[in-house]
C-alpha cells in the first residue's frame, strides 16, 4: 500500500515537474521573441508567395474605397483572394465585399452592385463601363464603375 502511494506521488511530481518545465521554457521563448521582434515589421499571416503584392492591394483599397459601397473581387479563387475578401471586409467596414471567380465573375459582381472591382491577375484593360483607379501590383487593377 505504502509502495503504491509512493509510486503515485513520484508520478505526480514527475508530471507537474514536466508541465512546469515546459511552461518555463515557453515563457523564455515568448519573452525572447517579444523583445527581439520589437520594432520589426508586422507579420500578418498573408497566404501565397507574394505578400508584398497583397499588402500593396490592401494599401490601395484602404486609400480609395470608403463608405457604404460594395467592393467586388474577381480572381482565381485561391487562398490569396479569400484572404483579401476577409481582410478588406474587416478593415474597410462598412464597405461590403463580394468575391467571385470564373469567367463570369465580373458579371456576377455587377449584379451584386459592386461599385469598385479589384481584378486580380487579369488583363490591365478596363471594361467599357469602368475606369481604372489604381494598379496596386502588376496584373492587378482596381476599377470603379
Amino acid at each position, binding site marked *: 500500500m505504502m509502495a503504491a*502511494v509512493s509510486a*503515485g*506521488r513520484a*508520478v*505526480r511530481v514527475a*508530471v*507537474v515537474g*514536466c*508541465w*512546469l*518545465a*515546459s*511552461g*518555463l*521554457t*515557453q*515563457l*523564455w*521563448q*515568448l*519573452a525572447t521573441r*517579444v*523583445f527581439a*521582434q*520589437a*520594432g520589426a515589421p*508586422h*507579420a*500578418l*499571416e498573408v497566404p501565397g508567395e507574394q505578400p508584398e503584392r497583397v499588402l500593396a492591394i490592401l494599401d490601395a483599397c484602404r486609400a480609395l474605397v470608403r463608405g457604404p459601397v460594395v467592393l467586388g473581387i474577381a480572381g482565381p479563387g485561391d487562398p490569396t483572394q479569400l*484572404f483579401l*475578401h*476577409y*481582410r478588406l*471586409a*474587416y478593415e474597410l*467596414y*462598412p464597405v*461590403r*465585399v*463580394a468575391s467571385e471567380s470564373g469567367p463570369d465573375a465580373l458579371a456576377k459582381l455587377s449584379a451584386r452592385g459592386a461599385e469598385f472591382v479589384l481584378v486580380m491577375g487579369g488583363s490591365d484593360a478596363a471594361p467599357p463601363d469602368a475606369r481604372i483607379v489604381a494598379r496596386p501590383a502588376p496584373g492587378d487593377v482596381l476599377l470603379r464603375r
Partner: protein
Amino acid sequence: LIPSELAMVLLGLASGYAAAGPAAGRDRWYRVGLAWPLGAGFLALLVLLLPGDSRGLARVGWVLCWLVAAALAVAALVRSLPARPEADTPLPGGGSRFLWSAMLAVVVVEIVVLAASVVLDPRLTDWDAWAIWGMKARAFAAERSVDPYLRRVDWYEFSWPDRPCLPSLVAAAVALPGGEPHDGAIRTVHLLWFASLLVLFQRALRRVLPPGLAMVYTAALATTPNLAYHATAGLGNLPLGCYLFASLDALDRWRRAGAPGLVVTAAVLCGCAALTRDEGIVLVAVLLACLALQWARLRARGALVALTAAAIASVAGYGAWRAGLAGRETVWSLWLERGTLARLGLHWPDASRVVSMIAGELFSPAEQMEASPLEQRLGLAVFWPAFLATTVAGLPALKRHSLAGPAAAVTAVGLLAFSGGLWLFPYQDLADLAQNWAFALDRHLVALAPMAACAIACSHGGPFADSAISPDQMNSGGAGA
C-alpha cells in the same frame, strides 16, 4: 488603450467588482478575479441592448423581455434556497514561502511579457481573431448596435454570424466612445480574462491545497503554451474557459458555503459562457449535469434549485444572441440533421485513423499555438498526456472530490464530444478532415484546459493525494484544516 477605451474597461471592472461583493464575502482576491468576467458580461449586455435605429427596437424589446423573465426566475429560485451558515475557509497557510514567491513571480512575468507583446505589436495576426471576432466587434462598434450587422449577415457569412460572440460585444463596448475597436484593445481585454482566470484558479485551488502548491499549479497553467497563445490572440476560446471554470468554482463554493449570492453569480457566469461561443451552452449543460450527478452523491440540499437557476441563465444568454437571428439555422444543425447517424456507419472504416488523428492532435506539440521548446524537443505535448495520466491514476479520489470530480468529468465528456464531432463531420476524405478540421481541436480544447488543470492539481497534492482521507473531509471546505 486610448483613454476612452481605458475608461470603458475601468467601468467594466468597477461594475464587476461591485457585483461580485455578495458572492466573494471576505475573499478579496476572489472578488478581484470575478471583477472582469462579470464586468465584461455587463458591457456585452450594454451593446446587445443598443437598438441603433428604430428597426432594432423590436429585437431589443424581445431580448429585454427574455432577460427580465430569466432574471425573475433566477431570483425566485435563489430566494427559495435553504440558508446555510457554515463558512468556506481556505486551508491554513504555511509551507515554503520561497516556493510561493517564486511561482507568483512566474505568473507575474508571464502576464507582463504577454502585455508587452500587445504593447510592442498590438495588431491581431490570427485569421480567426480578426475575420470572425474582430469583424463582429468592428461592425458593432461602428454601428453602435448589433442590428445592422445582423441584417446584412449574407455579406459576412465568413464571420460565423450565428455564433454567440460575447468577446466581440465586449470589444465593441470598449470602443463605443471612439467608434472603432483597436486591435490592441481587443487583445488587452482578452488578457484581462486570462489574468482573471489565473486569480480564480489560484483561489479555487487555495481552498483545497496549501499556498505553495496552489501557486505551483497556477504558474503551470499560466505558462501552458496553448493557453498563453490564446491569452492575447483575440479568440473566444479562452473567455469561454474562464467562464466555465468560474461557473464551476462558484457553484462548488455555494455547495460548501451556501451564500445565495454565489448562485446568482454562478448563473450570470453560466449565461456569459453560453453567450461566448456556440459550444458554450452545450458545455454549460455538461457541467450542470456532472454537478447534478456529483451533488446527488453528496446529498447537497437545494442542488436542483441552484442548478436550475444556472440552466435558466445559460439559456437566456444564448437566446439573447439568437433573438436577432430568428429563422436562421444554428451551427448545431449540421450535427442534428438526419445524415449524422448515417455518417457514424459511413466513417466506421476510418475509425482507427480518425482516432489516431485526434490523438495526434492532442499529443503532438501544437505548431500554430507555439509549443514550448521542451515540447518541441520531446516531440510530445505535455498538457493532455498529463491530464490523462493523472485522471487515470487518481480516479478513485477524483470520483469523490466535489471540485475536481466534475472538472475531470466535464473535461472528459468535452474531449469525447469534440472528438465525436470530428468523426461525425461530413468530411470529404481524411486529408480534408486533417487539414481543415482536426487542427481546430487545439483551439476548442482551450475552453476545457482550466478544468483539466484543476483536476490535475487536485489529484496531485494536498489532502486529496492521500487515500486515507475520508470523503467527508474531502467535501468540506475545511478539509485538512
